[in-house]
């Protein structure tokens, strides 16, 4: 009944550093369940992150973990996967880390269709550094750097990933814990670049400034505005206003995976 998360966590690491109600912990639990479902040998599994609250996640997990430079999770993960193609490589991180400073690495890892699983926790803000706006902060919302409202249009991370060439792209929220582990499991099993965007909450640096009354308010927003892709197909654009699609948004099993292509190229060069 009660789930054994403790076997996957480094001894003495709990309680974690995340604020009360921060969704990153819910995502971490989903990731642990997915790794269990896939029976990943932790000695052959690398969890790679950049910098940010979300990027603190690998430090808690009893696996091969890499906490790297800001925005560079995809770059380091690409290196690990190229050197050890037999290893399971999972990236985790935030919207700021993955789409602002790390946007370039993110899109090029997608373009290569390298066999990584990237769990990106989108809490719409730079949480760790006190709430500067990220490329995912909704237009009009408040951040420490947009005191009159954010004038910028937003990145839709999943659409960005599909456009850049990722072959498995899915979205869920911190309020859909069972879907988190289901989608990460599918992502791990997919051969190629898998992006799982988890819409998340940051009560401290985003919620408070934007007059969400509580973390519960933020969680209800995630619950109420999620529309499964199948249901969305029957809805009008007006009905979908302000909603977001959840589930598998894109899946292509045909496109070749990068490490395999590279190995074939290596063989060709050796035989030339």
């Amino acid at each position, binding site marked *: 009944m*009660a*789930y054994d998360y403790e076997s996957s966590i480094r001894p003495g690491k*709990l309680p974690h550093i*995340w604020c*009360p109600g921060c969704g990153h912990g*819910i995502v971490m*639990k989903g990731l642990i369940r997915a790794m269990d479902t896939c029976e990943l040998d932790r000695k052959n599994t690398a969890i790679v992150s950049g910098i940010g609250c979300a990027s603190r996640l690998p430090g808690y997990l009893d696996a091969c973990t890499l906490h790297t430079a800001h925005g560079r999770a995809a770059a380091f993960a690409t290196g690990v996967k190229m050197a050890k193609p037999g290893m399971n490589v999972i990236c985790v991180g935030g919207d700021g880390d993955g789409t602002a400073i790390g946007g370039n690495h993110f899109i090029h890892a997608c373009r290569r269709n390298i066999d990584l699983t990237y769990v990106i926790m989108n809490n719409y803000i730079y949480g760790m550094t006190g709430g500067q706006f990220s490329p995912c902060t909704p237009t009009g919302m408040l951040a420490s750097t947009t005191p009159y409202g954010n004038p910028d249009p937003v990145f839709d991370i999943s659409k960005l990933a599909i456009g850049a060439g990722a072959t498995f792209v899915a979205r869920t929220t911190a309020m859909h814990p069972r879907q988190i582990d289901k989608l990460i499991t599918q992502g791990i099993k997919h051969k190629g670049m898998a992006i799982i965007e988890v819409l998340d909450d940051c009560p401290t640096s985003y919620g408070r400034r934007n007059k969400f009354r509580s973390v*519960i308010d933020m*969680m209800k927003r995630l619950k109420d505005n999620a529309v499964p892709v199948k249901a969305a197909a029957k809805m009008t654009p007006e009905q979908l206003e302000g909603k977001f699609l959840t589930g598998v948004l894109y899946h292509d099993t045909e496109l070749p995976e990068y490490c395999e292509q590279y190995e074939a190229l290596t063989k060709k060069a050796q035989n030339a």
Partner: protein
Amino acid sequence: MSGARIEVIERNCKGCSICVEFCPKNVLEMDVFLVTAPRPEDCIKCMQCELLCPDFAIKVHDE
């Protein structure tokens, strides 16, 4: 059959009240900053509290 033993790991609980809010059977309650389970006999073991707790602080056991 309903009823369960709810374990709260006080060391980990940060009092966010997510588990209390999303329990469909009103089993849980906040005692200032800590969650308590005054009505374990009403639990239907849906596991929502355990799944949604960001802090590894609540466990639902058979019993």
